[in-house]
C-alpha cells in the first residue's frame, strides 16, 4: 500500500510534502539488499517514532515548566540557553551523570526491569497510531484493542517498581496507581467503544478514514456529534487519570507519599520513568485524536494542502497544552473522591453514552436526532453531576477536644 502511495503521489508537490517521510524511507530502503529491505523499513519507522516522540518529550518538559511557571506568575527555567530553551539538554546530562542508587533490600532485577518495561510498553503503542497519511507502523485489524492491551502493561511496570523497591511509600503509591488505573480503564475503554460502534472497525487507520470529509466547513470528526463530544470529554478525563497526571496524580502525591512508586529511583532510571509517563500521555492523546479529532485530517476544507502529520502534531500539542493547563489549575483529588468519580459518574456516563451512540446510529439524520442525543447527554450529566455536588457538601468542623 505504501509503495503504491509512493508511486502515485510523488509527482504533485503538496502530496510530496505530505509523503516526504515515506519517500525518504523508500529511497533509503531501495539502496539496501533485497532480503533486508522490509526489516530496514521497519527499523527506520521505529527510529523515527523513538526520535520524534523523544524530541516531543524534551519540548514538552520545557513547555510544561515554562507554562506552569507563567500560570503561577513565575518565569520558569530561564538560565540555560535562550530563555531556558536548552534546559532539557541540561536535564538530560544531569540525569545521565547522576548516581544510580538501588536500595540494599530491593529486588534488584525487578527494580531494574520496571522502568525498562514502562518505556517499552509506552513506545509499543505508537505502532498503531497513524501520525499522518500512510504513516502508521502496522495497520492492525485490532489496533485499538492492541493499544489498550499494551497500555495496560504500564500498570504492571508501575507495580513492579513499587513492589521491588521495598519501601512503604512506593508500595502505597503502586497500590494507588493500580486502583486508579484499573478504575479509570473501564470508562476509558467504554467511551472509546462508541467510536468503534460508529465505524464498525478496530483498526485505527479505518477509524481515521471514516472521519475524512466535510459537511460545508464542518469536518466529519466524531467530536462534532453529541455522543462523540461526551465520549471525548470522558476519554480525556480517563486519560488524565490513566497517565497519572494532576489532578489524578495520587500515585505520586509529593505531599503524602513523596514520589509514590518511583521514590527509590534515581539518575537515569528516574528519567526513564519520567519519559515513560510522558510517552503514555502522548500516546493516549494520540489515540484521542485518532478516535475523536479526525486523526491527521485537516480541520477546515481549504487547509487540506497542509501535510497530514503537521495536523496530527498540532492537535497533539493542543492536547498537551490542555493537560498542562489542567495541571496548573486543579489540586489533587482525595482517594475517595477519585473512586466515587470513577464509579458513580464516569462509568454511568460512559454506559449511557453507548446508548446515545446507538440512538444516533439508528435514528434518521435530522434535527430530531440531534435533539434526542443532546438530551440523552445533558440530562444524565446534570443529574449525576448534582449527585456528585450534593455528596461534596461540607460542614463546619467542630472540635470537641482541641480548642
Amino acid at each position, binding site marked *: 500500500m505504501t509503495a503504491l502511495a509512493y508511486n502515485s503521489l510523488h509527482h504533485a508537490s503538496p502530496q510530496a510534502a505530505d509523503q516526504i517521510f515515506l519517500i525518504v524511507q523508500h529511497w533509503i530502503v531501495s539502496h539496501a539488499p533485497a532480503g533486508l529491505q522490509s526489516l530496514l523499513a521497519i527499523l527506520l519507522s521505529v527510529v523515527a517514532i523513538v526520535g520524534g516522540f523523544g524530541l516531543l518529550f524534551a519540548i514538552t518538559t520545557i513547555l510544561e515548566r515554562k507554562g506552569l511557571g507563567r*500560570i503561577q506568575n*513565575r518565569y520558569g527555567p530561564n538560565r540555560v540557553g535562550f530563555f531556558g530553551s536548552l534546559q532539557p539538554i541540561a536535564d538530560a546530562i544531569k540525569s545521565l551523570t547522576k548516581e544510580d542508587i538501588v536500595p540494599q533490600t530491593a529486588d534488584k532485577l525487578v527494580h531494574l526491569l520496571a522502568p525498562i518495561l514502562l518505556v517499552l510498553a509506552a513506545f509499543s503503542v505508537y505502532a498503531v497510531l497513524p501520525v499522518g497519511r500512510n504513516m502508521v507502523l502496522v495497520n492492525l485489524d485490532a489496533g485499538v484493542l492492541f493499544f489498550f492491551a499494551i497500555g495496560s502493561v504500564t500498570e504492571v511496570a508501575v507495580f513492579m517498581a513499587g513492589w521491588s523497591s521495598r519501601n512503604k511509600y512506593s508500595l502505597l503509591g503502586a497500590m494507588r496507581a493500580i486502583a486508579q488505573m484499573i478504575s479509570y480503564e473501564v470508562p476509558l475503554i467504554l467511551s472509546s467503544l462508541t467510536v468503534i460502534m460508529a465505524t464498525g472497525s478496530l483498526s485505527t487507520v479505518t477509524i481515521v478514514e471514516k472521519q475524512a470529509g466535510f459537511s460545508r466547513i464542518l469536518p466529519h470528526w466524531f467530536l462534532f456529534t453529541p455522543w462523540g463530544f461526551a465520549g471525548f470529554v470522558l476519554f480525556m478525563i480517563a486519560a488524565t487519570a490513566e497517565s497519572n497526571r494532576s489532578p489524578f496524580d495520587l500515585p505520586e502525591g509529593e505531599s503524602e507519599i513523596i514520589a509514590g512508586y518511583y521514590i527509590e529511583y534515581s539518575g537515569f532510571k528516574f528519567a526513564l520513568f519520567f519519559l515513560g509517563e510522558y510517552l503514555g500521555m502522548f500516546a493516549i492523546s494520540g489515540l484521542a485524536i485518532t478516535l475523536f479529532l479526525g486523526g491527521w485530517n485537516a480541520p477546515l476544507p481549504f487547509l487540506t494542502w497542509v501535510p497530514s502529520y503537521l495536523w496530527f502534531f498540532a492537535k497533539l500539542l493542543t492536547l498537551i497544552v490542555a493537560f498542562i493547563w489542567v495541571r496548573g489549575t486543579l489540586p489533587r483529588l482525595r482517594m475517595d473522591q477519585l473512586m466515587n468519580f470513577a464509579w458513580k459518574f464516569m462509568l454511568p456516563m460512559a454506559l449511557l453514552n453507548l446508548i446515545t451512540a446507538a440512538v444516533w446510529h439508528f435514528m434518521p439524520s435530522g434535527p430530531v436526532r440531534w435533539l434526542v442525543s443532546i438530551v440523552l447527554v445533558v440530562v444524565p450529566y446534570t443529574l449525576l453531576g448534582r449527585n456528585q455536588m450534593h455528596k461534596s457538601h461540607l460542614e463546619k468542623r467542630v472540635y470537641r477536644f482541641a480548642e
Partner: protein
Amino acid sequence: MLGEGIAKGLIETARNFLGSYVNKDRLTTVQYPEQRLPQAEATRDFPFLVYDGEDWQAGLRCVGCQICEKECPPKCIFIEKSTDKKPDAVGKPQFYPAVFNIDISVCMSCQICVEVCPFDAIKMDTAFELSTVDRFGGLLWDKARLAKPNQHYHHVHPTEAAEVDGRLAEERAKADAKAKAAAEAKTSAPPPAAPPAAPPANSGVSSTS
C-alpha cells in the same frame, strides 16, 4: 452544575498565564545573582567577634568567659580560655580566648550568644554567601576569621551598633568617674564607714569570668 468551578479555575489560570506576559508587576521574581533586594536592617546570619581599634588580636572584646559556649543550643561554639591576661582595648588586663571556633554548619543563627554576652563582644553578621568546597575546614571558623572591626558592625547594623557604643561609653565613663572618686577618697581622707553601694557593672562581671 458540575464543572462550573473547574471552568472558573481554568479561566483564572489562563488570566494569570496571559497576564504575566502583559503585566510585568505580576512577576515578582528577583533574578538573584544579578539583582539583589536590599537586606532588612535586622537581618542576621552568623555571629562574628567585634574588636575595637586597629589590631584584631589586641582589640578583641571577648574575654573568654564561655557564657555563649554554654548557652549555645546546638553547641557550635568552642572556646579555650587563656591562662594569662592581656590588656584589652582600654588597657585593663583581661583573659582572652586562646581558641574561639564556631562551626557555622551547626550554627542555627538563633542569636542567643549575642543576647547572653555581657561584653557586647559577639554580634550577628549579614553575610550569607558562604558556600565552600571544603566542608570541614571551610565551615569551622576560627578567631581570625570571626574577628571583625566595630566599623563593620556599624556598617551592617547601624542603629544597634550606635546604641551599643553609647552604652559602652556610658559605662566606661561611669567606671572612670567611680575610679577617680575612689582614688580621691583614698588620698584625701581615711576610708569611709560604708563602701560604695554597688560595684560598677563592668568590673562586677569581669570578676565572675
